[in-house]
């Protein structure tokens, strides 16, 4: 494994973590939106506040991590992605601002009307953001970002693979979130809410499975390289994803929410890793290899050191945070 490969792998750790943890946070917003004014909506919103409140900012940092790794390790690739995918990045940026601000403001809103307005802002942008991020991934994976950048401002991210990416991103976020929220609701002694959102996790999981299988067709037509590698060395991961997906659906059917979380995370992680494996050794599929995009070697060594630094500072802290939020006395409201 070369230094560049190592850096790419470390960067991909961020992509994976963001897909799972950031994904579940976005997905929670999607369910917030879908809950509308149904009977369970207030309880669900409180559960979402408890579930993602302590973690969403930390999970959000993975996106910064990916961007920083990208521009520091692969400067030309970063330039190419940002100049070509200018439009979807703007939507992602808008979505991130509205999501974060909406969520933070809602929790302290004084009236139901303002909580509603901030809530809708939070929820709608939780849907938009992963969709455009998925479209960006699809654009990169289908070879539509030229190495020198300045690709077509519209056609580069509106191909079939981008639509697949955007749709799958939204569905996997929603699937992860519903599974996680069901487990959280159970821990917060709200079995009714757990069952309600758990049923939705099951339906969402089924839809996601169908779309994931169906996605083979457009990818086959649209992205030869990606399709070829997915069927080759990526096949194992797709099988893992399928198996984990089936197991999760069964667990959800049995109302084993806590265990189902693991299955859901594995199923989604396997797809994301499958994408990474299928795209290797390119940073921009078909157009720019990791080697060619790589910047100065000394800086890459610096990035490895930075990663180690993060592994001994941020990672243990994050593990502690996750342990805390999964403790029983953290599952309910303060002073409850």
């Amino acid at each position: 494994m070369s230094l560049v490969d190592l850096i790419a792998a470390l960067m991909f750790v961020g992509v994976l973590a963001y897909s799972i943890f950031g994904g579940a946070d976005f997905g929670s917003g999607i369910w917030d939106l879908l809950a509308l004014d149904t009977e369970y909506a207030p309880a669900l919103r409180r559960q979402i506040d408890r579930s993602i409140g302590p973690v969403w900012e930390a999970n959000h940092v993975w996106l910064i991590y990916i961007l920083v790794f990208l521009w520091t390790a692969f400067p030309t690739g970063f330039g190419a992605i940002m100049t070509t995918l200018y439009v979807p990045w703007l939507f992602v940026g808008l979505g991130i601002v509205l999501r974060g601000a909406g969520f933070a403001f809602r929790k302290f809103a004084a009236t139901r009307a303002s909580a509603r307005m901030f809530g809708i802002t939070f929820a709608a942008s939780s849907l938009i953001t992963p969709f455009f991020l998925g479209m960006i991934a699809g654009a990169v994976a289908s070879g539509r970002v030229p190495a020198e950048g300045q690709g077509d401002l519209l056609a580069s991210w509106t191909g079939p693979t981008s639509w697949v990416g955007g749709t799958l991103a939204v569905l996997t976020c929603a699937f992860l979130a519903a599974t996680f929220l069901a487990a959280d609701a159970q821990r917060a002694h709200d079995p009714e809410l757990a069952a309600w959102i758990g049923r939705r996790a099951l339906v969402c999981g089924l839809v996601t499975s169908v779309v994931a299988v169906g996605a083979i067709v457009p990818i086959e037509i649209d992205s030869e390289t990606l399709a070829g590698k997915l069927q080759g060395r990526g096949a194992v991961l797709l099988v893992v994803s399928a198996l984990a997906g089936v197991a999760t659906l069964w667990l959800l059917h049995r109302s084993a929410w806590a265990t189902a979380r693991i299955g859901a995370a594995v199923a989604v992680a396997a797809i994301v890793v499958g994408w990474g494996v299928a795209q290797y050794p390119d940073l921009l599929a078909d157009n720019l290899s990791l080697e060619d995009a790589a910047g100065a070697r000394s800086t890459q060594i610096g990035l490895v050191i930075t990663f180690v630094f993060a592994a001994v500072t941020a990672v243990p802290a994050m593990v502690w945070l996750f342990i805390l939020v999964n403790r029983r006395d953290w599952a309910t409201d303060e002073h409850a």
Partner: protein
Amino acid sequence: MLALEQLMAARWQMAISLGSHIILSCFGVALPAMIFVVHRRGIRRNDQVALDLAHKWAKAAAVLFAVGAVSGTILSFEMGLLWPGLMSRYGDVLGLPFALEGVAFFVEAIFMGIYLYGWGRLPPRTHLLTLIPMIVSGVFGTFCVLAVNAWMNAPSGFTLLPDGTITDVNPLAAIFNRALWQQFTHMFVACYAVTGFLTAAVYAKGMLLGRRDAHHRLGFTVPFTFAGIAALLQPVIGHIAGMRLASDQPSKLAVMELATTTESRAPLYLGGILIDGEQRFGIPIPWLGSLISRSSINRSVPGLDEFPIEDQPPATIVHLSFQTMIGCGSLMALIALWFAWRWRAARRGGPDPFSKRMLQATITAGALSVIALECGWITTEVGRQPWIVYGIMRVEDAVTSNGGIWITLAVMLVVYSAMGTAAALVLRSMAQRWRDSGTIDLPTPYDPGSDP
């Protein structure tokens, strides 16, 4: 002409997004330390007033940090969306401190979550100690971000070959560039001044409205003390930072001083604008220009005549911003001294230190701190023009060629104005509900008919 409009739009967008984020980042850096002081007091003295104050500040911090986190993300997007020329070429030279800053942000965000949700759940001492990593990340994060900005002013850590290729990249040398320490300390201290004066101003307002309880006194005194110390240190630090410029960034110094020609025993112009290359309307103070910026009346202050017209920064705006910053900074230092004097007198049996005028002055200091912060940034950023990397890369070579920046600028103005207004309203309503309800936990009204 189109390219010039494009550049202006991009610069405006960057200026507005950075100018907004910088205020929030001050709170991210300095507020944890202030919360620590009151929280520690609450635990040590079993002081419920101090504990409540810490708890409320933590809740306010949650709102400010969220807005800071998302506005900071926008900046990282803009590095690529607005300035791809800079990032494609120098990403691996300037990128490492950003990566380290990412780690700092990670740590801060994680402990923010732990601290906020730890109220009533973590053992008191452990809970208090979770603020320490946040304070440390504030220091380290400021260091990293300022390392990048200082690098743009004093680029180092690479070799530029005549054919334009970049070799010998040394990220450590890039971080530890010549402008680093001055800029870092200057900005770090500014964070404490801004956060401290703005927070103290909130309680000063409350006291002016007659709420002169222990809660308001403590809420005033702790942040004011931080800010006051910062305000007294800042003129010294700023002066040292300025002395670097004669050798490192002479064109910036020339416009800051509004010096049209290089001369020793240069005067200091109070105010003044540049019209057709001539200084007008400024009040000259003989020799002081040389004395302040070069520490000797015999050393010369570089003038604009040393630079071709295309390499000159816009003079009037930099000069006026610079002097506004100095003016605001001096007033803040005076207000800090005044309160220290009144505090000391009060301890010797004098009158209550929180006189009406003192409180009004503190509210003014809050405003002055923000003006000084923004003017300082205008000085250093506009003063670096036309360069994005001083002497090496021009802004027009870094800016994106994608059009429509006026549109994104307009969208951003609307979104940021809405976000700023909403944040202010939410914080205000929180304060009001705290006063009305007497409890710190505020319910979120999700159910129909649950309006308080």
